[in-house]
Each structure stands twice: as C-alpha cells, then as structure tokens.
C-alpha cells in the first residue's frame, strides 16, 4: 500500500507546488503552498520520520504560512501588477535559478543516484525518532543549534529596533 500512497502524495505535492508558482492570485498560491507542505509532511510520515512530519506542519503550514497570508491580505495584493525593467530582471533571475536546478536534476538522474538502494538507513529508536532528533540536536549538533538560535534572536531584536526607529518620528504612541 505504501508505494501507492507515496505516488498519491507525491503527485499532490508536485501539482500543488506547480500551482503555487503558476496561479495568478497570491492568496490561492499561498494556500497551494500550504497543501504542498502538508503533502510533504505525509511523505515524511511514510519514511518513518513522524517528528519531522509534524514539525513541518506546525512550523511551516501552521505558523509561517499564516504570517505570509496575513501579509498578503494586509497589503491587499490582488494581482501581480508589476511590470517593466524590475519585472524583466526578476524573470531573468528566475530563469537562471530554474536552469541551475534543472541542470542539477539532470546530473543527479544521469548518475543514477535517485533509484539506488537505500544504503545508509539508521534504524529508528524504539521510542520513535523524537528522542533521536532531540539527542542529536542537544549533543552532537549543540553548537550549530545554539548559533542558529542566536541568529534568530539577533534578527528579532533587529526587526524591533528597525520598526521603532521608523515610527519614532510620529510622536508618542500608546503602549
């Protein structure tokens, strides 16, 4: 049954990812991205990575995309209205990045990397992989983990400082 489920979720993932970039309306695009994240989470579940799958839904689909949606609605972006030089430039960069990705994909398939046997497959721990992920994060990868948290903290403080600096000239603000 697993191969059929994988095929189904992979199809949903690919189609919704395509619709994310092809759809005209920003809100609908965002919703297709949420669907793509959910399909990806289902694929994680089938690989035995339950923790990763659930965190994928909580963090990406539940938190980040809600903020995206919030911003899209706040700016009331109805259509893609930009045109001219900037638009052409962005389109060029998009083609360049897409071309690099396509070249990578061709190389990977040419080396028969994708359909090979699952060589390195660590057996999941008895208590599920939540403990495995936690142990790895807090022992072997403690330093990168802490550095990442520091970077996020710095970004957060920076955003607040930047926001305060701009609104400072408008006089006193209530709380």
């Amino acid at each position, binding site marked *: *049954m697993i191969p059929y489920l994988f095929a189904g979720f992979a199809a949903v993932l690919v189609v919704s990812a395509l619709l994310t970039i092809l759809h005209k*309306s920003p*809100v609908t695009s965002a919703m297709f991205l949420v669907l793509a994240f959910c399909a990806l989470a289902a694929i994680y579940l089938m690989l035995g990575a*339950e923790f990763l799958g*659930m*965190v994928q839904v*909580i963090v990406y689909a*539940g938190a980040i995309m809600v903020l995206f949606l919030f911003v899209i*609605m706040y700016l009331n972006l109805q259509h893609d209205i930009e045109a001219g030089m900037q638009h052409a430039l962005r389109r060029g960069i998009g083609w360049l990045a897409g071309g690099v990705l396509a070249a990578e994909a061709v190389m990977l398939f040419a080396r028969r990397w994708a359909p090979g046997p699952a060589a390195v497959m660590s057996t999941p721990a008895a208590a599920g992989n939540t403990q495995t992920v936690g142990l790895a994060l807090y022992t072997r990868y403690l330093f990168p983990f802490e550095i990442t948290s520091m970077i996020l903290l710095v970004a957060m403080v920076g955003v607040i400082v930047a926001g305060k600096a701009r609104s400072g000239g408008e006089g006193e603000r209530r709380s």
Partner: protein
Amino acid sequence: MAALWSNPDFQFVFWTVVKIMVILNGMLGVVSYMIYAERKIAGHMQARTGPNRVGPFGLLQPIADVAKLFFKEEFIPAGANVVIFHIAPILAVVPALVSLSVVPMGPSFLGTDINVGLLLFLAMSSLGVYSITLAGWSSNNKYALLGGLRSAAQMISYELAMGLSTIGVLLLTGSLSMVDIVAAQAGAYHIGPIPIPHWFVFSQPVAFVVFMITAFAETNRAPFDLPEAEAELVAGFHTEYSSMKFGLFFLGEFANVITICSIAVTLFLGGWNGPWLPEPLKFLWFFAKLGALLFFFIWVRWTYPRLRYDQLMHFGWKVLLPVALANIVATSVGMFWYAQR
C-alpha cells in the same frame, strides 16, 4: 470476497473506516446536543427557561435547528472569491475531527496511537487558523476581513503559550503518545486516608490553568471571542455566511471545543483513569470529565465579558507566555532535583 477479507491492508482500512464513522457520528451527536445544552444553561443563568417547545424539554430543538439551516437560502456575496469561500467552512471542521483521532477515550476505545499524538493535535490546532482567516478574506466584506485578521493574530499568539504549557506534561511523561500520557496518570498517592490521583492537574497546576485559558482563545469562545465581536464587527468572519455553511462554522466551533476539552482531559485530568468501574466501562470516566469541562466552557461564556483587543495581546504575550516558560524551567529544575536526591 474471502480473499479480499484476508488481505491485511483491506482489514486495516476497513476497521479504520468503521472507527472513523463511530467517532465522527458520535461527535456530530455530541455537538448538536452541546448547542442545546449551551442554550439551556444560558437560559437558566439568565433566569429564562431556554428552548422548551420542540419535544419534551425542547430535546428535539437541535434537529429542528439543523433542518431549518438546510432549507435556508445560500447567499454568496458579489466579489467574493467563490472557491475559497466554499473551502473555508470545510477547513473549520476537519482539523478538530482529525485531532480527535489520537484521543484515547477508553482502554481500547481510541482511533489510533501514534508516537507523536500531541504534536498532531498542535499541528491541527495551528491549521485551524486558516478557516477563519480565509473566510474573512474571501467574503469581500470589511467586517469579515477585520474579524479574520484579528483571529489570525489571536490564534498565533495563544498557540505559543498553549504549546509551551503542554511541555511540563511531556517532561513528566517522557513521551508524546497520548496513550503513554494517560498511562502515566494511573494510580494515586495517599495522604492519610485521602487518595490524590496521579493526574497532572495536581503536579502541573500552572500548566493546566494556562492550557485552559489558551483553549478559550484558540476556540474563539468568550471572553476571547474577538473575531466575532458582534458589537463592533457585525458577526466577524462569518458575517456573509448563511445556510449550512454558517452551520459548518457553528459545528466547527463546537467540535473544536469538544476536541480541546478531550485533550485537556487526556493531558491533565487522567484521561479514562478512575476508580470503581471495571475495565470495559472506564470510558465513562472520560466522558464524565469531558462533560464537566464542557459545562465549564459554557459557564465561563455566560460569566465573563469580552476582553479588549490590546488587553488580549498584552495578556497573551506578557503574562501567559512568561508564565508557561517559567513553568517549564520550574518543572525541569524540580525533576533534576528529584532525580539527584
């Protein structure tokens, strides 16, 4: 037929579908009678009688209500985004029903036991934001949009405190599986002749209070019902909804309340653990505790006034979040100290 029946995949799918049907229909029945209970209790709290015309004590009122909703005209506002307008009410109901699948209601009465059950609940409650936000946006109505945006901000803010409040329980259990969390709450201490159950509400009282407060905010119930504050926003995000689509939002709200109360019972009130009853009847304990919490939800709704928006944000970020964080630190220190002794 026999060959199909002996296929383990088919059996798995068959029994899963049966379980889903039982839980789904049970849920719908409980929701319709919870609406009845809410109207009845509200009536008695305000010295009225509540619905009492349809059937004995008004017991058939929910059926009449739903039948009426089905026959109402369905209205779609001009300029609405029709597809999203149709999807939003569905999204209101589905997450609540999905997270009910991991709640163990009795020793052998549960949808499924996965080792990330609690994370599934948190994931589904975070997806619940979409229905209200999208409903508000797709209606092409200022009040609905304001209600939707308010709800997005409110649910993101309170989700954090809710997630953090469950971590105390996780620390004590060492597992994310709902079945393990219930098993960890079996038995009781004895202080003299008085037995105190091993429920986490006694070892994690702060977490329980934070969880219940955030539960009100996550389900958009009073005193946190700002997304549909009728005095300022007409009816908030569901202003433009009519007929059974409005009914689905109603169903979604009550389904969310039931789900979140079930999770609270599982995490803090010992799930189906309880004295006296034999093993097959233990699920009655679960439903008794669930009923008590549901009554509590209705009671609070008719007791407290609505918060102002800035009070809501202030309370969520500057009170609940630090308290939940402090609870995690205190629990960890306590466990470390206990282990060292």
